[in-house]
């Protein structure tokens, strides 16, 4: 596979005013039946996408599937229960009689207390049948944890790809209300003891004894304050090569340097990362992250194919935008021929704590069109 044959080589991404222009014209073009899937969290950004989409006119249904997830009785997120309730009320108020609101609770823990959120959310949307009434499905990941939206999107892509084989061309969009300052202020708390491979990508296949001799490559997309996660994922993956991905260009031009300073001891003294393995990708362009990851993986795969190939673990530890790049690369490589075994390693957390309430609410809406009309041959 070459660069030319990457599925999302040509991509569709709009932000800010471009977001408004696109959706306004898209809705004006024809009647659109839209299902918006969004998480019910405490982050006020969860309402941004719906509010904006409803304000941009157009005909057709604007239904909402509201994903509710309970992070357990000890979750620090309960501190913000009032905000969460307010967000739920705001969604109802915004939606009014413009569409149906459907609550979709996700089982986060098994009877033994094991985390099964990723598997549950993939099962929640079991088949493409429930999307039959819609022309467009929009997944708003602004208030969804990574452990839910990555498997959800993988499942959606798989369902929509099957649909396309059957001649359907339903559109799949992802929107996110992006704010680096807010992201930095919301920190994960109560990390799980160990990392796991997310359901929806290669998980068991990565741990297979039969392929244990294949070299393992780990590409962590680095963000701030992720040292415990890095340590735990490293322990899970036990990689032979590590290729950290740094944001560059980034809003803060020294972001990459800051990350190197923060992780110097771990990356260079403990894990002995080769500086030449570092990958750079634009902070706010998930498709650029996707391309850089794809290039690196394909390079390793080609170089190591005489020895039986390689296995790859990706970890999204940065912004939600960058994590979409991880998703796309992992999904594409796992569904192509020849297949590359790519998993997404992740550490779940008990919940979130807002470190500073004084963060200015300066957000930018991004929309990514992942599947459907615009990619039709």
């Amino acid at each position, binding site marked *: 596979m070459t660069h030319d044959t990457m599925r999302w080589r040509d991509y569709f991404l709009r932000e800010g005013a471009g977001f408004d222009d696109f959706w306004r014209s898209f809705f004006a073009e024809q009647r659109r039946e839209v299902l918006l899937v969004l998480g019910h969290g405490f982050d006020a950004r969860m309402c941004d996408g719906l509010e904006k989409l409803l304000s941009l006119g157009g005909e057709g249904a604007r239904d909402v599937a509201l994903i509710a997830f309970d992070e357990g009785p000890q979750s620090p997120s309960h501190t913000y229960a009032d905000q969460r309730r307010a967000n739920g009320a705001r969604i109802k108020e915004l939606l009014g009689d413009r569409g149906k609101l459907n609550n979709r609770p996700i089982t986060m823990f098994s009877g*033994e207390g094991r985390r099964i959120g990723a598997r549950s959310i993939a099962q929640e949307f079991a088949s493409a049948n429930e999307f039959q009434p819609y022309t467009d499905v929009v997944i708003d990941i602004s208030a969804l944890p990574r452990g839910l939206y990555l498997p959800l999107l993988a499942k959606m892509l798989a369902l929509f790809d099957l649909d396309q084989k059957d001649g359907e061309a339903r559109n799949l969009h992802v929107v996110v209300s992006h704010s680096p300052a807010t992201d930095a202020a919301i920190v994960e708390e109560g990390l799980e003891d160990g990392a796991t*491979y997310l359901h929806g990508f290669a998980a068991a296949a990565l741990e297979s*004894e039969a392929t244990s001799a294949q070299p393992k490559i780990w590409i962590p997309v680095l963000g701030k304050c992720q040292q415990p996660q890095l340590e735990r994922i490293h322990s899970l993956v036990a990689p032979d090569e590590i290729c950290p991905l740094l944001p560059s260009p980034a809003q803060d031009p020294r972001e990459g340097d800051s990350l190197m300073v923060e992780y110097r001891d771990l990356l260079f003294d403990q894990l002995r990362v080769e500086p030449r393995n570092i990958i750079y990708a634009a902070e706010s362009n998930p498709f650029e992250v996707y391309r850089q990851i794809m290039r690196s993986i394909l390079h390793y795969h080609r170089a190591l194919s005489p020895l039986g190939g390689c296995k790859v673990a990706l970890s999204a530890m940065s912004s939600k935008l960058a994590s979409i790049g991880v998703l796309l690369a992992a999904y594409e490589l796992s569904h192509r021929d020849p297949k590359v075994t790519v998993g997404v390693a992740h550490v779940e957390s008990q919940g979130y704590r807002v470190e500073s309430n004084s963060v200015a609410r300066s957000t930018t809406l991004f929309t990514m069109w992942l599947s459907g009309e615009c990619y039709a041959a």
Partner: protein
Amino acid sequence: MKDVRNPFRLQTAESIDSDADFLRLFGHGVLDLLPKDALSGRPLFIRSAPGGGKTSLLKLFTPSVLQSLIAMRGSDATKELYNRLKDLGAVTDHDINVLGVMLSCSRTFPALADIDLKPQRARRLLLALIDARIILGALRAVLLARRLRFPDDLVRLTLTAPPDEHIPGLRFPCDGTSVKRWAEDVEQGVCDLIDTLLSPEGSGPSGHDSLLAFRLLDAKCIQLDGRLVETPWLVTFDDMQKLAATQRAALLEVVVEQRSRSTVWLAERFEALSTDELLSSGALSGRDCLVIALEKAWQEKRRFEPAVLLIADRRARMAADATGANFALGAFAPTIEADLDTPAWQDRTASALEVVRGRVQAVAASKPQYAEWIQSCDAADGTLRQQLVRWRTVEILIERHARKRQLALGLGALTREELEDRDESDVRAAAELFLSKEFGFPYYFGLSRLASLGSFNVEQFLRVAGDLFEESLAAAVMRRDPHLSPDRQQKILDGAYDARVKDLPRRAQNGREALRFLDAIGQFCREETHQPNAPYAPGVTGIAISMQDCATLRNADHLKLSPDTAALAGVLGTALQHNLLLPDPDRPRPAGRFMVLYLNRLLCPKYQLPLQYGGFREKRLQDVVTWPTHGYRPSRSERLPL
């Protein structure tokens, strides 16, 4: 191997590239903890906190590592290790004498438990996956042990049918390649079932009723070039705690029921509030098995300090090798200064001595019964530091005597002999601690205390020793003296708390509450320790909860009715999982049997506590149940002046 600037940072077996480096860095002291018949066929449980060295120990017995060891047996770095393994029967003069197959239970097995399968099917698939992995490991082990190549030489292996056994999908006799393909297919089938985004029910392999791999290994059905492979097998399961409860029960049941002739080692994290269920559940009743709790074994055999200091020296040597012959730090111990009797401390010691001596003499002036004790102190030889400690010890003893006298109304003069009797090492240790608090002398320095700060955990020791070594490395690079003074050591070790414990809320479930609970224990211990008469010399470093209360903390029905107790159980679980409390269960006391929970020694500097074990206070659940939420509030009786 890539260049290693600070080899102390290679804290896990997984982070070391080559078998040769693994062996060079391996401290053979842990082998002292194994029973002599560890390879005799009895199941062996190895338990410790994370970082206790379980995985390294299991890795040592894998064929490639043992082969490397035999090749390096003449080397100074590995000679002793080789001899120990020879004594255990793992190697002979020229050959491997045990075929090790190492399985990590954290890989794939937990995910299998998360699929919505019927229990019987889930069990069959679990056993099939274990079978497939053991057989793949066994094929590899046989070839590597004979210095053959895997998988190229699999055709030289022949497997015959085990008596009275049918292995679904496998036709005997067959060669190694066919068996490998069979095992890979079984594993692939289970893995596909786990990874599929579609409904798993009804797809995938049928699974196995029992562990067929053990029967195959026991029956000696494997031939290499037509000759039976008769080397005994060692199958090790690492990270057993990662299995779901049903999986663990199933595995233990088959390991026990089948009474395999192969030796099975099961390594798991010690969770004091749950692990004992494993033995009391009946799963192992009637079966002879061995259990080693690494922390307890280190403590009982008093082997931790020499073991970790050997590890430290090996790492320092590796750094010296990596940086070239000009580098001064060929060993770790010489860089760590352990003496406060140096000229740098003379002035401060002299002025402290003046203060303490003055205080004691003032008390004695009005109480003539202490006159002989004072004379004894005056006449004592020794360095300034020794004199200072002696005077402070006498001050504690006078305080003790004064309190007792108030009760006993004894007024007789005290003799020099009585002083000698009372001047025990515990009181001297308390005196040292009090001096450090009062006059700012460093207390946490020197090799012995550094080893103690490891809390019987090799990884923790490597972290703190690595912090010290980092400083020496930096000094050497800048052509400065790489030796670390006691106060510099203490400053670096003080920072270890911040690095490892302070961010517990982020790192761990219930971390915020656990941190508050640990802080409460720390404050409580400090109050108990720093009383003028040092009643629990050298100090209190833990609390004890009755085993009955521990049972309450495990009682699911009770926890449902009592959220506070449930929260405390969760917090204790977190503290134990993260090795922040060191449990010593089932300890007999006059009031019954107790579980002592010692603070991890890394917390001791924060609360100015000694590093010795043995000092603890009994607490009832109702005394501590509010500590995770409200922190420590001393009761009236505990509010004694410091």
